[in-house]
């Protein structure tokens, strides 16, 4: 019998007013697997991740983490579930009132109740894992470049040794070389430590590199799901148009002229 999925979504729906964003999403992510959700801007990829994290409440459906339906849990239990998660936000979302080391150590101080000296030591070690020196630890997030902010965000996400990490557009806004550096860091942090990862991106190079499996979200549903190596020849016209970046195809962009 195969192992139960780490994350299991069934018929998850979410709408904002009349706008339906998720129209019944089904998704399984196995333990240690890296799944990438691709899709155009505004198709609900971030809403999907935020619904799993409990930042947004799904209107209906089942969201299970380790077999527990987190849509039914109370706030305190929800906080306990969130201890399994790490998250790299699109804009890094670093706390600009805190120095870099305290950003990385935030979860260690709040969740694990480490004292500040121990937490700082762990933070500096974690920063080293993402290629940042100890000098950076004392800087303010506003003093860092976009690529460095992403690396600090990644360090914060992995500092608490999470079981599951979410990556929201990890390479958006970065130059190709820095994007590849981030991809490599994600692979080394996630795959080598056996962490389950769910990423959302529209950067196909990144999706192919960091994902074991790719799935595409379109009009609120996952319309294709398969191995990352098959994404270029999947036979689905929607996916092929998106992967090749063609303006012509079944996906129509609403552009006013």
């Amino acid at each position: 019998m195969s192992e139960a999925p780490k994350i299991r979504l069934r018929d998850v729906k979410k709408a904002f007013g009349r706008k339906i964003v998720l129209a019944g999403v089904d998704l399984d992510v196995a333990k240690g697997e890296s799944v990438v959700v691709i899709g155009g801007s505004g198709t609900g990829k971030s809403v999907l991740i935020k619904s799993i994290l409990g930042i947004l409440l799904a209107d209906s459906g089942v969201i299970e983490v380790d077999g527990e339906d987190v849509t039914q849990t109370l706030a305190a239990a929800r906080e306990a579930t969130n201890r399994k998660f790490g998250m790299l936000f699109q804009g890094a979302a670093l706390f600009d009132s805190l120095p870099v080391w305290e950003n990385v150590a935030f979860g260690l101080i709040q969740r694990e109740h480490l004292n500040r000296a121990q937490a700082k030591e762990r933070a500096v070690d974690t920063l080293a894992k993402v290629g940042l020196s100890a000098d950076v630890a004392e800087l303010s997030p506003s003093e860092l470049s976009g690529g460095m902010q992403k690396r600090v965000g990644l360090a914060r996400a992995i500092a608490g040794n999470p079981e599951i990490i979410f990556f929201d557009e990890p390479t958006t806004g970065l130059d190709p070389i820095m994007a590849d550096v981030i991809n490599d860091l994600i692979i080394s942090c996630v795959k080598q430590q056996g962490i389950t990862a769910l990423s959302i991106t529209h950067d196909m190079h990144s999706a192919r590199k960091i994902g074991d499996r790719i799935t595409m979200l379109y009009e609120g549903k996952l319309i294709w799901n398969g191995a990352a190596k098959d994404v270029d020849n999947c036979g689905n016209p929607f996916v092929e148009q998106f992967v090749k970046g063609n303006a012509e195809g079944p996906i129509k962009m609403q552009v006013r002229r």
Partner: protein
Amino acid sequence: MNFLALIGSVVLGFLSHIGRLTLFTGEALSHCVRPPLYPRMIARQMIDIGYYSLPVVGLTAIFSGMVLALQSYTGFARFAAGSENAVANVVVVSLTRELGPVLAGLMVAGRIGASMAAEIGTMRVTEQIDALTTLSTNPFKYLIVPRLIAGLLMLPLLVLVADIIGVFGGFVVSVYKLGFNPAAYITNSYDFMKPLDVISGLVKAGVFGFIIALMGCYAGYHSKGGAQGVGAATTNAVVSSSILILTFNYIITELFFGT
């Protein structure tokens, strides 16, 4: 849209706003009495609200006291001879009951309410509040509760200082410009002032501090739409807390001194 629909939409919008504010207040209060609290954050907010507001509140108080003494003196001079002696009484009662808490409240609303709304609003639009949630930290406990507690505790202290500085301002003008006897002025002030004058002012200050923090946090927490949204949140925080301060000033005055 017809006229009735427009009225209905405005009323519904207003009621929904009141409902959200009530829920927000209830949730914030419930987190105030449930651990964990964040002493470090509370201390930081106390310094921000209390210590860093001292110059602006002090300056406002001293000039208010000085103007009050001058205006009372020239005003009373129009009436019965000798009524100028009531200057000390008017200054101390006006400052402790009304001007101290209201002026300090309005100044702190402009300084702190706006900065709270801008800081929390920026955290909202840059996903820092979402990041707190992913780090198993309740944003209410980490961001809102420390500000509410600090506002509630620090405003009375600020007003106490403002009362002393304001009375001193009145003393300086009365003694050095209007030629009052310093000892008589101090005796008059002390004899005429009742504990209830000061207590009512401090109660007002506590309520105003809570209102400033609440409206600043509420506006920031619900801001959206980038820089423009944060700007609107800042304006809303200052305007709404100023209006509420003046409204609650009347209500509390009625409760203490209403006949």
